[in-house]
């Protein structure tokens, strides 16, 4: 479904519930020229696509590897001047997505926004207008509509009703034209009905549901497994230069035919299952 040049939203929040297996698959497919809109606080899911050369333009308010530190490819590419970055703060990006999901022309931000330099660094998205009610100045952001948004969750039924703890996925899935959910487990409709108060992703928006166990690795998936610190440190080290990152991709992405081979390479018994106990 994902094509070259598309505007792609990726869910998650910091390193958790991130569609990382999906990102690796895009790298394997060799997708190009994406406009990437990762979750407000993004990590591996954005950085690996950047490092593999899949991204032309990045909408970002934060890219880092959680408490591990800097996202290596993001930093390297940004400092080399080869990446087109659209600079946001957390609220501007989220309110842009919300405007798209709510079908309004723009979303106003709180007083004081004019003091934040993203307004000057990104004049195409932050505009100062006059509030018609008071005559005061107010900063507004336009709708941001990804062609496709991809989310990873712990539990989703076959109809796309998904439960997650809630960071930005709830807004992201309403903003996008199409939604793909990857899930640790496809649960029954009865399971959804028994827990309907926890459903945050509305199935009507969802185009495809894909069962991908450990689909968030090396990030954590809430209630399923913890972050793989050892792997993320290996990733961070590898991403510091192009050659070592190429070797990382050869080993963990191009060198694996599919997600199952990836999991075997990481080590199911000696690594992945251990992440379940903490």
């Amino acid at each position, binding site marked *: 479904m994902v094509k070259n040049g598309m505007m792609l939203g990726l869910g998650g*929040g*910091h*390193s*958790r519930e991130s569609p990382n297996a999906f990102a690796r698959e895009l790298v394997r497919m060799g997708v190009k020229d994406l406009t990437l809109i990762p979750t*407000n*606080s993004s990590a591996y899911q954005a950085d690996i696509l950047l490092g593999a050369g899949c991204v032309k333009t990045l909408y*970002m*308010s*934060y*890219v*880092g590897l*959680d*408490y591990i530190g*800097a*996202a290596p490819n*993001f*930093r390297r590419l*940004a*400092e*080399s*001047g080869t990446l087109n*970055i659209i*600079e*946001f*703060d*957390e*609220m*501007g990006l*989220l*309110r842009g997505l*919300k405007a798209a999901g709510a079908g309004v022309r723009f979303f106003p*931000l*709180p*007083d*004081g*926004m*004019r*003091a*934040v*330099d*993203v307004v000057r*660094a990104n004049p195409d998205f932050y505009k100062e207008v006059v509030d018609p009610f008071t005559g*005061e*100045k107010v900063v507004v952001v336009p709708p941001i509509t990804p062609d496709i948004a991809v989310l990873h969750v712990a539990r989703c039924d076959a109809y796309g009703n998904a439960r997650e*703890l*809630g*960071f*930005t996925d*709830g*807004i992201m899935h309403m903003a996008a034209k199409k939604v793909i959910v990857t899930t640790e487990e496809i649960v029954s409709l009865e399971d959804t009905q028994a827990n309907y108060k926890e459903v*945050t992703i509305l199935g009507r928006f969802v185009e495809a549901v894909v069962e991908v166990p450990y689909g968030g690795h090396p990030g*954590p998936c*809430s*209630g399923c497994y913890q*972050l793989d610190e050892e792997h993320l440190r290996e990733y961070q080290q590898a991403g510091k230069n192009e050659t070592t990152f190429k070797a990382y991709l050869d080993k963990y992405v191009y060198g694996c035919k599919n997600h199952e081979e990836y999991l075997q390479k990481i080590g199911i018994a000696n690594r992945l299952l251990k992440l379940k106990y903490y």
Partner: protein
Amino acid sequence: MFESVHAKDYYPGEIMAAFLSRDLKDGELGVIGTFSQIPWLACRLAQATHAPSLWFFCGPSAAMNSKFDKLLWSVGDYRMHVGAESRVSLDTVMDLQGHPWFIDFGFYGGFQIDKYGNLNMAYIGDQKKPKFRGPGTIGTMATAWLNRVYIFTLAHSPRLFVDKVPFVSGPGFLDGPGGREKFGCPPRARGPRYVVTPIAVFDFEEETKLMRLKSVHPGHTVEEVKSRMGFAPVIPAKVPETEPPTVEELVFMRDFDRDGILPQLIQ
């Protein structure tokens, strides 16, 4: 009741958390970020001591009043939901941050902080090809409109404390007196209150809005504090020592930080 005795041996993160904790009042509500182990500990310490009804929530894990009883590396960790009282998605967090009174205080940082308490999380140098690329502005913009802001740092160096940040992610007093008003920050948002570092505490001089040394942690000197900054902070004639953690505070903090994160956090 035992009489409070000050501890003699503690880590920098512990005196920082104890200082911040004492400034939080019962019944108030605060917001903390992701790499915010010290603010989390400060909130839990306040709850365990003088402010049992303090509220706090963390944006990244979406949990209100987490009762999880051990410090973790990431405050975005979903275990923060243990004992939580409500869940606040980022969309709700954004609503609450703009709300006129709901949040009393928040904790923020940056890879650069200047003499007016402005924070930089974005980049240094040319926007298209920066000399240094930071992770991004993320939630620091809220210092423009949150009622009370605490700045905390894990280092104290000239690279961190610069005369003027090239990019304002989190507005402090901007270009000095009247700066916040000029850019439309609401009057209730009073700007940064304290800057707490591993070796000292600063506040801001009322008339000039310049960063002013408030106290120096025991074992450090005014000279050392000055020499490790890229600008000269206001130094009053008398600078007291920061009050160390009490033994009771330290017992709570050591029990809460069973994995020994604070000692590793600040070298």
